Each structure stands twice: as C-alpha cells, then as structure tokens.
C-alpha cells in the first residue's frame, strides 16, 4: 500500500543510506558506517565523482565522491586484481557501477510508490579535492544528467549531504532533490 503522500529529502536520505550499506557489504565485503558530516578526505586526495540521477515524476541527482584510494580498493576487491594492475577506466567503471546500484535501489523504492521514473546512466569525473575547478566539473556532469546545459537554480543547493566510512576510506554523497 502506498502510505507516503510525499517523498521527502528525509526518505531519500534514508534509502540512500541503506543502499550504500547494502551495496558496500554485498558487492565489496566492506561494512559502511555513517560518518560525521565534518569528516573530510585529505585535501591532497584525487577524487572520482560518480554522478547519476532519476528522471520523470520524481527528479533527483546524486554525486558520490570516492577518494582515489577508496575507489582503487573497491575496484581491486570486486575485480579480484591487485591495485597495480588496474587502469583508470576500470576504477571509474567500479565507481559508476557502485552509484548505479545505490541509486537503483532508491529508484526501486520510489517506483514502488507508483511514481513513474527512470534512471540515467552514471557519469564519472575526476578532480582534485579542493581544486578550484572541481565543483565546476561536478556541476557540469550533473547538468548533463539533468539534461540541461545551465544550472538548475532549485537544485543548485544541496538538499542533503551524507558521509560514510567504508573501510579506511570516506565516501561523501551529495543529494540534489
């Protein structure tokens, strides 16, 4: 029975949290625990940012920030290859698929409420933590996901920011809703 009359940021954040924990544990054997909002990857870290969205009667975008070391580790675990044998494409693919599974789980929850929607294909961008153009790169990827060239004013502000400790790495998840 559809008992929700409105999908809120709170619902989506809760579904995202469950999905991150489930994907991390099932696919990578890594427990993921919610971390404090203030926790931050080292400013020297390279980041892989997986951007993905849901379109239709429910519209949202998600940007998942994987520090390079975490992305390498997840790729190594899932592909059963040592980190030295991985190339950039493989690591980006794993980050993209992680985001696809997480947002797929959220999309399933939304669809089960009889809201018509579809998922986009993920886009992964590389940037340096705290580099001046990092935010621009991420916003450009999100704009492609949204299917519009310019920034969407109502989505330009983050609706919610989550963080997870995944093994030794910190995964940040921004939700635009």
């Amino acid at each position, binding site marked *: 029975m559809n008992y929700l009359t409105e999908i809120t940021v709170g619902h989506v954040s809760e579904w995202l949290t469950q999905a991150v924990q489930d994907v991390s544990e099932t696919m990578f054997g890594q427990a993921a625990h919610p971390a404090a909002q203030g926790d931050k990857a080292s400013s020297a870290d390279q980041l892989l940012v997986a951007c993905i969205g849901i379109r239709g009667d429910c519209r949202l975008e998600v940007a998942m920030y994987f520090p390079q070391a975490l992305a390498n580790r997840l790729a190594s675990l899932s592909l059963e290859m040592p980190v030295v044998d991985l190339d950039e494409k493989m690591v980006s693919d794993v980050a993209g698929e992680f985001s696809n599974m997480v947002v797929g789980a959220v999309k399933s929850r*939304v669809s089960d409420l009889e809201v018509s929607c579809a998922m986009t294909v993920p886009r992964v961008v590389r940037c340096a933590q705290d580099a001046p153009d990092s935010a621009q790169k991420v916003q450009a990827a999100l704009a492609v996901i949204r299917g519009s060239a310019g920034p969407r004013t109502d989505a330009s502000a983050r609706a919610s920011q989550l963080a997870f400790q995944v093994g030794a790495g910190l995964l940040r998840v921004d939700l635009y809703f």
Partner: protein
Amino acid sequence: MSKKILTVDDSKMVRMIVTSTFQPYDCVVVGAADGAEGVEVALKERPDVIFLDITMPVLNGIETLAKIRETPEIAEIPVVMLTAESDGQRLGMADQLKVSGYIAKPFKGEQLIELTKGIIPLVLKGAPPSAAPPKPQLPKLPVPNRP
C-alpha cells in the same frame, strides 16, 4: 558440451563478476557492453542463457529484450534480468517479454548459479560424466483422454 552464457551490461565490473562466477563450471561466458551489441553477440554465439542489465546506453535492457523476442533465431533463449532497477514497474514490463528470472543488484555469485541451475544443467569443470546433475525435469502435462 560447454554451456554458453552471455552477460549484457555496460559495467565491465559486472561482466567480470559474472565471468568469474561461472569460472568453476564447464561454461563459456561472453560479454556485450550495451543492448545493441548484446543482440549482435546473441545472434553470433547463440548462448544458452542471457543475463541482461536494464539501465544501459544505446538500447536499454527492456528494448533489448523486446528485440531478442522478435528475432526468431534467438527468441527462445532464456533471459535473466540482472539489474539495479528491481521495482514492479520495470519487472512487469520484462515479465510481458517472458523473462526466466530476476536478480537485483547488489548480488552474490551464488544467486547467479542457483538461478542458472534451474534453467540449464551446470557441470563443474573436470567432473566425471556420472557426477553431472540430472537435467531439469519438465513438468508433467496431463494426458488427454483419447476416444
């Protein structure tokens, strides 16, 4: 004779996990990175089972499934949806196109094996012929009364 499995997924990670899951079995796993390529590979390789993602570029999984079902040479191949989109809407659409099963991502390799065993016989590599599991039994149909 080796069984052939086709995995159609835009993620190399998923294709590699499917390949390594069936590695202990007498199977050949072939892959395709999108739906259009999946139809092409299915026509060329004639797999025994297809694992099909939904969210893919070029042709999505539902469009690919429809294409498979309308192509006589590959129309009868069992298809299992392996997808992050496991909601009723998507699965209902797939159901109309006669899918043999669904596995929701995230998934474990054992789920692939269990579901596949219900569709085709799987034999461990190097197992003697006598160790081969029996073929799946077709359900018995009622015998019609003859005049």
